[in-house]
């Protein structure tokens, strides 16, 4: 007969498994327990600096970086409803020249122009020069009454609607208002091909049909 003590290797108790120095009712060996403790402590210590750093880097996504700002671009007499007048506004005043952009402004003509759906009628049409393809600066050509992009050949009609090339939606616009006889330019908004208003989106983001759900709005807008 075999006198050696019988151990049940499958038992959940360390005592039954014949581990030296086991306590009664103990299920986790001290070695295993220490392994777990070291991994947990190391994990907590790593997370303690990784998570704040990650949040620090990702913060701008959730930050409202475009506070409402109205900039005057000149008296009402400067503008008409026949042609666009170029004006320079400051999008990011903190960085000087790179933060400036050209916009094209004309008076809204209720008889001829299509209303933008989803907002109060704007007294002026202020077209952004940021191409809806990849963000190059478009230029207005008076002779053909079109906006053209130098980078990849995007062409937009008089109201900023796409007429050719790769752009996926009309040119963005800015809110406008008149204060004390002067035209003021507000924040940017985007449009889809039906001239329905959307919160500002990046160039290259489609806004028609089901596409609009693939390009979500910013968390802060």
């Amino acid at each position, binding site marked *: 007969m075999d006198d050696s003590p019988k151990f049940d290797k499958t038992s959940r108790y360390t005592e039954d498994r014949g581990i030296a120095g086991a306590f009664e009712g103990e299920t986790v060996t001290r070695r295993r327990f220490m392994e777990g403790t070291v991994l947990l402590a190391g994990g907590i210590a790593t997370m303690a600096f990784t998570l704040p750093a990650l949040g620090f*880097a*990702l913060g*701008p*996504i959730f*930050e409202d*970086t*475009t506070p409402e700002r109205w900039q005057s671009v000149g008296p009402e007499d400067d503008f008409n409803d026949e042609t666009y007048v170029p004006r320079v506004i400051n*999008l*990011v005043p*903190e*960085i*000087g020249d*790179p*933060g400036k952009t050209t916009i094209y402004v004309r008076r809204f003509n209720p008889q001829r122009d299509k209303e933008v759906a989803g907002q109060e009628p704007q007294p002026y049409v202020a077209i952004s020069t940021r191409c809806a*393809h*990849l*963000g*190059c600066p478009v230029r207005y050509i008076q002779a053909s009454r079109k906006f053209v992009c130098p*980078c990849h050949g995007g062409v937009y009609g008089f109201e900023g609607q796409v007429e050719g090339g790769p752009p996926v939606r009309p040119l963005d616009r800015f809110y406008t208002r008149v204060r004390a006889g002067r035209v003021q330019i507000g924040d940017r908004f985007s449009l889809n091909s039906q001239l329905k208003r959307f919160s*500002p*989106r*990046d*160039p*290259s*983001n489609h806004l028609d049909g089901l596409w609009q759900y*693939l*390009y*979500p709005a*910013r968390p802060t807008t």
Partner: protein
Amino acid sequence: MKLLRPTPPRPGRNGPNGPNGAPAAPAKPGVKEKTVEGTASVVGWLDERTGTSSFLRYFLYRKVPKGTNWFYTLGTATLFAFLSQAVTGVFLAMYYEPDPTRAYESASRITNEVFLGEFVRGMHKWGSTVMIILIFVHMARVFFFGAYKYPRELNWVIGVTLLVLVLMMGLTGYLLPFDQRSFWATVVAVNINASGPIVGPYLADFLRAGAEFGPTTITRFYSLHMLLIPGLIIALIGAHLYLVVKLGTTAPPWLKAEKKDLLREEV
């Protein structure tokens, strides 16, 4: 190591005790002997404590297959292109200011005023192109020699990851001169990122640090270009080299494995 160590005395030759056991007159060591001995003892001291020589012997004197040729130097060439980028980059950082109002000025100051600035900046600029060309030629070598096959698949994957990281270096570095070309190229590149469904807009906001190209966009690109991506590249180059040394290199595909004589007789 072996060359630097003084040859141990052999029995019967002029040892410390001279021939026939008679004590030899102690020869006065010259400057050369002293230098050699001193260097050997310093190297020996370090080697005894770090094992450098056995590591270097394993690393540099490993066996390579027959037919190894100049194509096998492309990986090392890429490594040296990276080292050149790292060194010139560190020194460019001494004069460059990552600020939207100062970046262009400081970059043109490096070219026009700083001593050898044009040379160092030129090295970094043209070196980046050379590095990307070398990577692709190295990759083509690995592909056409079939060196990506078992057991080296993981090294191929690491290499492709390195390629992507190096292209990201190219993208983030392109903004830093901050002239018209780099500004608009970055605008377009960020908007290409924005065109990805669901995550695209968030990725673009992350790169720009906001909805518009803003005051911290350039510092963000600078930090990615200087610290984060190079760190990842160095770590992955380490893994890449470790696997090369561990698995060895492959023979060129035009060499057939030699049959043993025994097998040849049986045929």
